[in-house]
């Protein structure tokens, strides 16, 4: 068995799993975090996308042992009790999801992009979402939603900056 300790959505979690357990299986079957979806299970569809140490990865292709000690963000880590994350809100407002199965992966792929680039053009968004298959939407509304979310996050950012400045000053 592999003993795994990792930080998931800001919380330290531990589990003891067989060595061949993927990060996806660890999340879903051992830690009751079923937001990441099991789609193709071979890294084509992106439904299992989570963010590991700041990067979007297919959790079906990463062994739990390889994620040991790392920081993982899953879809469960985005919304607060009262509010959706701006990307989730933009997806809802724009009708960017239909059946929703691909949603957690798409939204986390979008988050990984926007964490790096707060004003991506359409080609950049398409590139960032190329690993997430959606059989309902045709992607257009998703891409619009990511652009809306980018605007929201940019509008929020100056406040955070001024907050950081006042902290630095004090």
């Amino acid at each position, binding site marked *: 068995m592999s003993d795994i300790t990792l930080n998931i959505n800001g919380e330290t979690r531990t589990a003891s799993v067989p060595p*061949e357990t993927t990060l996806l299986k660890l999340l879903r079957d051992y830690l009751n975090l079923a937001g990441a979806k099991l789609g193709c299970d071979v890294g084509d569809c*992106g439904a299992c996308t989570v963010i590991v140490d700041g990067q979007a*990865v*297919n959790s079906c292709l990463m062994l739990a042992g390889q994620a040991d000690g790392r920081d993982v963000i899953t879809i469960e880590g985005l919304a607060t009790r009262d509010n959706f994350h701006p990307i989730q809100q933009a997806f809802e407002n724009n009708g960017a999801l239909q059946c929703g199965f691909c949603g957690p992966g798409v939204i986390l792929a979008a988050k*990984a992009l926007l964490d790096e680039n707060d004003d991506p053009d359409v080609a950049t968004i398409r590139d960032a979402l*190329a*690993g997430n298959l959606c059989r309902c939407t045709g992607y257009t509304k998703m891409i619009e939603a990511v652009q809306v979310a980018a605007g929201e996050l940019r509008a929020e950012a100056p406040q955070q900056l001024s907050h950081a400045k006042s902290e630095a000053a004090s």
Partner: protein
Amino acid sequence: MQAFELLTANNSRHAVELLAANGPAVKTLAGGTDLMADFKSDTHGINALIDISRAEDLRGISLTDDRLRIGSLVTHSEIMAEPVIRDNFPALVDAAHTIGAVQTRNLGTIGGNLMTCIPSMDSGPTLIALDAMVTIAGVDGSRQIPLADMFLAPRKTALRYDELLVDIVIPTRNIGKPTAFLKFGLRKGQALALVNVAASLWVDEETNSFRDPAISLGAVAPKVIRAPTAEKYLAGRAITDEAMAEAGRLAVDDAKPISDFRASADYRRELIAVLTRRALAKAFELFTTRQKENSA
């Protein structure tokens, strides 16, 4: 997935010790984007994986003594973001960008891509067109061979089971050599190459002719190959559109494409001619762009 043991290597030395100590039914695990996908259906009798993803000495890109070293564990995303590579070899950035999707490129490594040894790999042609060498380590020491000699057949490399690919080195003489990579797939994202091509060339400025032209082709033979007939034709010849087009036609005969469910052999032959011509033109364009930048 079928059960297997997972052993974590702290560095390359530790990795080769683990490989040697655990017998032939072991395999090295890096980013896992190829290996894990394969293991979901069959682990092929492998009973232990040596996880090298934490071996820090296999990371890093460095330009030292004018040679470029890329650690085998460098991810495709890291190649795309690395200024040394962007400045010297934009073709490597282009090649990395065509591999899988963001999620694949964040996990997948250049060493892993080469070790798959599949003919359509996108990391191969550019490196082969730059005469890259690879360092292979075993418990008794390491050896360096041309990357071209590491590929034996589909999914078969020159490495013994207890050896490890440590790094890829582009030799001094080819640092900054204008190089281009082009791939034709059926979609923009997540598509395997029907054909991919890399071309590199120096320019003899007095005669405006090709010096050391190199053309490498993927997905058109059992392994990534060079196109010697086309290269020989270009060497010393004046740089013209016609010469590039003729090199493209000659490159077709250097290849042995097959028909499969992605494309027919005839279609691949057409692609070889067109992509070779375009890759040569793009490499030459890079040369002229750099020359303008230097004189400005």
